[in-house]
Each structure stands twice: as C-alpha cells, then as structure tokens.
C-alpha cells in the first residue's frame, strides 16, 4: 500500500464533489456534494497522519468532522427555510439577493 493510492482517491472524490456542485440544480445534491468535498479533505488528513506517523492529522480530521456537522445543520436549516418560502428545490430560482422584486 502506498499513500499515492489514497491521494488519488481523495482527489477523485474532491472532483466528483466539485462536479456535483457545478452541474446539478437540486439543493440537496449541492449540499451533499459539498459534504463529499470536505470529507475528501478529511481523507487527505488521515493519510498524512499515517504517512508522517503523527497524530496531528487525525486530530485535525476530527475537528473537521465537527465543522462538517455544523455546516450540515446550517445548510439543512437554510434548505428548509427556502423550501417553505417558495416550495421548490431548484437552486436557480433563489436569486433574492440579486434582484429584489
């Protein structure tokens, strides 16, 4: 086993997340893609922790998991709020800040 395999997997995951954010319009898919990108960073941290034989990477990954949890709570709350306002999940329709009608 070499770290390069894990790095390859992490970069692939990050790219898939980026593609999901860019190409889909469903708010939930956008949210889950962002989570996937954050988790791929987590995988890089864990690999570095093993590579350098140091617990700092694992510690940072645990802190990052807490950040991901906070992000999930806020994002889901925002999705519920937006859905209650306009009964849609289409991210293209939410442009309130651009032009106030």
């Amino acid at each position, binding site marked *: 086993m070499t770290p390069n395999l894990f790095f390859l997997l992490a970069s692939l995951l990050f790219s898939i*997340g980026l593609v999901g954010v*860019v*190409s889909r319009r469903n708010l939930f898919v956008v949210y*889950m893609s962002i989570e996937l990108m954050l988790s791929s960073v*987590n995988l890089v941290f864990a690999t570095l922790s*093993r590579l350098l034989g140091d*617990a700092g990477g694992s510690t940072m990954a*645990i802190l990052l998991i807490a950040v991901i949890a906070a992000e999930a709570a806020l994002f889901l*709350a925002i999705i519920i709020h937006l859905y209650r306002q306009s009964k849609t999940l289409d991210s293209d329709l939410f442009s309130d800040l651009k032009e106030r009608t």
Partner: protein
Amino acid sequence: MPEFNLELIIFSILTLFMLGGAFTMISAKQTLYSAFGFLVSMLALAGEFALLNSKFLAIAQVMVSVGAIVVLSLLTILTINTKVENLPKEPYKYLWIAFSLLIVSPFTLLLYKVLTTLPAHFAQAQTITTKLVGKTLFSGWVLPFEIVSILLLVAMLGAIIIAKEKLKGENS
C-alpha cells in the same frame, strides 16, 4: 504472479463502493437515491480510515457522518417529500455532468500531482491510537477544540433561528 495483498483488495472494494456511491449521488434523479449514495460513500470512507490505522477517526466518522449527518439529511428529505414533478427540471443533466467532468479533470491531475510530492512510503506500521489522538487534542490543539465547540453552539442556534416558523403576530 502478483503477490496476494489483502490490504490492496480491501482498498479496491472500498474504493469501488465509494466512487459508485459518489457517482450515484451526483447523477440520481430522486433526491432519496442521492442520499443513499452519499450514505454508501460515507461508510466506505470510514472503512478507508480504518485501513489507514486511524481507529478513532473511523469510529467518529461512523458516528457523526453516518449516524448524524446522513440520517439528518434523510429525515429532511423525507419531511420535505418533494414529488418527482416538483424536482428541478434538468433535461441536460448528463451532458452537464460530462462537460464539468471534462473541465475538472485537469484540476484533479494537478491536485494529485501536488499531493504526491510527499514521500511515497508510509512510516513504519504505526497505529494512531485513541490515546495518542486524545493527548494531541488536549495539549497542542486545545484552542481549535474550544473554537469548534463555540462553532457548534452558534451553528445550533443559527439553525434553530433560520428554520423557525414565523409566529402569527411577528412581522418579517
């Protein structure tokens, strides 16, 4: 004959599940199927952490990411319960996905090349034990730990306030 490498086989299976879950997530039409793909992906990620000898991280991943975040997402999706015809219309979805994959792939290569400038061998088989992680977390990483606890508190309050329904007499 290639040598029999159990770690590599487990890694391949986990990678298959992970990439399959991720692709299901970004390509499924129904939101619920995307969430299930996300669930599979997160579980496989916990397996990768276990493969990297970070036991505590694997357990934390299963408990927080799978047990809390994915379940919360599933609950939200089921509560909102959008009909298929109310989902965003995406007639050129696969075209968009293929196009953005094409755009993103050089970036992936760059990311991989940057990450692999590090030495290509693991240090001697060393397990990052829970004790070691705890000692690191509460000695050198106390300030980030406290900041994260405040962040979680603020995020909880913010989520409650954002998702709260407006009361009758309250004007926007």
